[in-house]
């Protein structure tokens, strides 16, 4: 007597259904263009440069007195720590010091070059004498004290950034 139950699918039927399904086609993945050069993104480049600067500043602790032959003292530990803290403040800015070196008076100098004749340098001693010097190749200059409060630091760094981009007028002499 024939069974009323449907014939259970054979194993090959299952395989057949599987084979009948759309073959998977390898399509090129759509990637957000902003992620294409993620390794070269501005933020990462900025962080890399900051790390390099931090390492350069740390190396200054190995320098000896009279490093320039003019009798200059080596940068103090306090000056080095302060300079590293200042460099960290640049994470949210688009400008960066191009170089960090010892200054002739025993501090750390963070050196900037602007687009045209604008130049700047931050001299850090780790004291209230720290300052930003905005100057140009024609001899005009203006000194901004480096403030202690973070908000005020942002203001002077914004001013520094504008100056180096040539947005701000030449400093008053």
């Amino acid at each position, binding site marked *: 007597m024939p069974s009323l139950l449907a014939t259970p699918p054979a194993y090959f039927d299952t395989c057949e259904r599987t084979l009948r399904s759309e073959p998977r086609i390898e399509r090129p993945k759509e990637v957000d263009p902003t992620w294409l050069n993620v390794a070269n993104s501005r933020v990462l480049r900025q962080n890399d440069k900051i790390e390099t600067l931090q390492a350069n500043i740390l190396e200054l602790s190995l320098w000896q007195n*009279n490093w*320039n*032959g*003019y*009798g*200059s003292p080596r940068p103090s530990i306090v000056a080095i720590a302060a300079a590293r803290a200042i460099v960290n403040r640049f994470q949210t800015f688009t400008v960066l010091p*191009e*170089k960090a*070196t010892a*200054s*002739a*008076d025993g*501090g750390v*100098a963070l*050196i*900037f*070059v602007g687009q045209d004749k604008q*130049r700047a*340098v931050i*001299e850090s001693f780790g004291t209230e*004498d720290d*300052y930003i*010097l905005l*100057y140009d*190749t*024609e*001899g*005009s*200059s203006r*000194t901004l004290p480096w403030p202690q409060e973070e908000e005020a630091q942002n203001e002077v760094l914004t001013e520094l950034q504008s100056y180096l981009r040539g947005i701000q007028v030449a400093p008053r*002499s």
Partner: protein
Amino acid sequence: MPLAASEVDVNKQFSLTEFLYRRAFPFELNSKGELVPTQLESFSFAKEVEGAPSFLRGAYANANDVVHQECAGNKDVSACSVFQMMVSELPGSIVTGDGKRQYSLWPVHKPLILCGAPCVIGSHLHDDPEKAYAKPSHAVVTELKVQICTALNMRGAVQ
């Protein structure tokens, strides 16, 4: 070979066309090859004039002497660049922010035993016949350094 102290006359007047030489290591220059003001020593403005930017005076030295060890405290400075300016290019006078005081600079010959040409830049109140050494504000000191660097950078490194 630099002249020794015994071979120079410290009383010889500086002429306006006399060169003043200053050396700098590559790491003291920015990417444009310019000397940065923080690489000049600050004027101490104490009674002694030693705490001031040091140069070699052209009357007794040339650019080669600037990178000689005997003029650099026995330090190897052969990798340095040499900048030069004339005495007449020293800043004429600088007025303080409050406009009350005016400073001028003048070179002072300070020979070393084995290197007779070093001089430092002193500062005095303008129109002071005694040339009394006077202490200006920090902003004036910085401005002096900027103007000296500007004069040095105008000519560029000579060596």
